[in-house]
């Protein structure tokens, strides 16, 4: 394993990080949840996700990437080093 490689997060850890990022209660999100059912998923939360993805995973998301997210799981899938 490359020593620089970040520890791979479990799905539970990713979910917790996402909940912290968009400031919702721990345990309130699930991967199958439609993002239109998450009222906290607003324009400010999208910017917070952008920052989190870059800082934690080195992933730069575009507007197109963000628009393609339909479920919580779609975001979790991108939460890994590319």
């Amino acid at each position, binding site marked *: 394993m490359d020593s620089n490689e970040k520890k791979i997060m479990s799905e539970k850890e990713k979910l917790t990080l996402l909940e912290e990022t968009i*400031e919702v209660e721990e345990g309130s999100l699930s991967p199958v949840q439609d993002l239109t059912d998450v009222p906290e998923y*607003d*324009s*400010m939360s*999208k*910017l*917070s996700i*952008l*920052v989190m993805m870059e800082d934690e995973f080195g992933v*730069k*998301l*575009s*507007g197109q990437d*963000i628009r393609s997210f339909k479920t919580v799981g779609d975001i979790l899938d991108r939460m890994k080093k590319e």
Partner: protein
Amino acid sequence: MNLVFDDIRISGIAAAVSDNWSPITDFVEKGIDESTIKKFSAKTGVKGRYNAGEKQTTADFCFAAAREIIQKYSINKGEIGTLVFVTQHPDYKSPATACVLQYRLGLSEECLAFDVNLGCSGFTCGLAIAASLLHMGSKKYALLLCGDTSAKEFFVGRETKKTNAAKMLFGDCGTSALLEKDNACEKMYLMERTCGEGFRAIISPYTWFRHPQLPSDGLGDDRMDDIAVFNFSTEKATELLRESMKATGTNPEDYDCLALHQANHLILKRIAKFTGFPEDKVLISLDEFGNTSSASIPVSLVKRYGNDDLGKRLRVLMCGYGVGLSWSTVDCFIDTDKILPLIHTDEFFEDGY
């Protein structure tokens, strides 16, 4: 384009606002829920803003700021040969508001006056324009007036803002900077950039000549791709600030402050982090004034130094970035005693129409 001047200095900065400051929490009365407001305020850094009076325009604030500089420093108006007014909210379709301001300020006929349609990069781009004309011309001074009344929510009776962010982010302000020609100046370095390919990222495309009709899509007049703007701002401003410091052989320790366009606090923190500036060197005016477009850099200087009697010569690194897409940096020296306290005014121009 990059520019260097060794005969131009900024010898006056002033900013004017109304007396009507409102906290961001007032949006509860306009139907935005408290938690949304709190979250928005925490992320953007906006705590409130000054609201222009119903009849007040950007020109009224810029006029008050310019008049204060002229009076305070007893400037010979006959020596002001350039007046550049940077705004997205001019008084009229025609003539250029700059011409009206030349008249209101009582400047000589030997003056070139025109408007420039730029927003958040307007102050740093405007410095390049005003400094170039001053450098080439026969007069001693140039006036750069920058501002917008972006917080106004109604235009010809129609509500123009549809998103909560658009309603809560902006503030109304007008500023003035006096540029002076003097052979004994420190160098002023400027870098100007444009990427018109990104013009759709921040745009008000309707009710003008290309698209006279506002469509009924409910999205309002002003359109912004938040993500594209966030990525543009953090990448391009960082890149150009680094390029400027490389060209001048400087690093953050060489500057007294970093004066960034006040887009939102999240963006300011990213730029500071990526360029190596400690956060205490980053000027903040967003909290009190909101995002004031091209007025944001001068009003940040006014907020930080306008009431100081330090008698200090500051080295300032500035970066404006936004609508266009357009971005630019300025590295220059400003004396704190040339930065005036904030002006409050409820004046407006009775033009007879």
